[in-house]
């Protein structure tokens, strides 16, 4: 396995980053989760680049692994995520991700 990381000044107006700290549903499972996270500070305009990556997985091995982490909507104040599977059987216990927004 491999981890990567990115660091930036906390008050840089051109970059915002954060984590979607979704709940762990164990022993239950989830199929879809759509949280919204606000930036620490409002950006000057809507970011043109939005990077995303998974940071936490807790998946039942009894079914195929089908997971996707998307950022379908964002503006200068917040970003919305969609954590989902596309098969009823492939639910997850835990699934989290990070984002990096750049002007």
């Amino acid at each position, binding site marked *: 396995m491999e981890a*990567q990381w*990115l*660091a930036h000044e906390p008050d840089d107006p051109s970059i915002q980053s954060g984590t979607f700290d979704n709940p762990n549903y164990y022993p239950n499972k989830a199929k879809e989760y759509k949280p919204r996270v606000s930036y620490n500070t409002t950006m000057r305009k809507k970011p043109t680049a939005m*990077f995303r*990556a*998974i940071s936490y*997985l807790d998946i039942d091995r009894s079914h*195929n692994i089908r997971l996707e982490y998307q950022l379908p909507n964002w503006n200068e104040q917040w970003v919305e995520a969609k954590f989902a599977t596309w098969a009823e059987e492939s639910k997850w216990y835990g699934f989290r991700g*990070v984002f*990096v927004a750049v002007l």
Partner: protein
Amino acid sequence: MIESAKGCEQLQSAQSIMGYDRPANLSYGDDERRGGIVIDDEARKLLEALYPKSYSVSCREVSCSSAPGWTGGIGRPYAYHNIEAKQTANLITGLCRIDMGLNGWFRLKCYTQNVLSRSGYTAVLGSWDDTHLFDASYSILSFDEEDQRVQTGRMPYMDMRTGNSGLPPAGARYTKRINFTRPFKKVPKVVTFISAIDSANWVNLRVEIYPYDIDRNGFTLSFGPWGGQS
């Protein structure tokens, strides 16, 4: 810079930024003063302070299925994407979609190679051995060479273990102190994420990555599975 300016008299200097050449249709008569075309050092420094250079970033998503000629299955070759981009520094690749069967271990990775500064790179992603990979997607972010806004890095799980060589103990979680190349002015924001997985298929897939003890000089990375995961 401003302290050394001498007011209107200075602005009338032919060497001043206010005396630059401009199109004739923007002028009003012969009395208007027109100066040289050279911006003096003081004015240049003032401009640089008022208008810092803006940098561009490159952010894109690549998938196995969108690579030319790639098809899913067991033991498939890697998918290659030749990316043209002027931003080739601080390249990071983050996993964002998995479609994988249970035939073999859960293996997936993405890395960049053939990086040509300010020109492009090749993104390589996929699985190996007996893993059944239907598809996977990664988000890739990169910056201009001169862009000092971020610092990035990667940490393979195998590099974090201590002691003897061989597979790390099942369920082992590791921590490692990572030092920044240069200190940040303030305690930075740090995000950590998965770029590769290699996990046994007889236990649940559990991976957690997070930073803590963040200060201006570095942070501690916590990385690994839990609950008896290999």
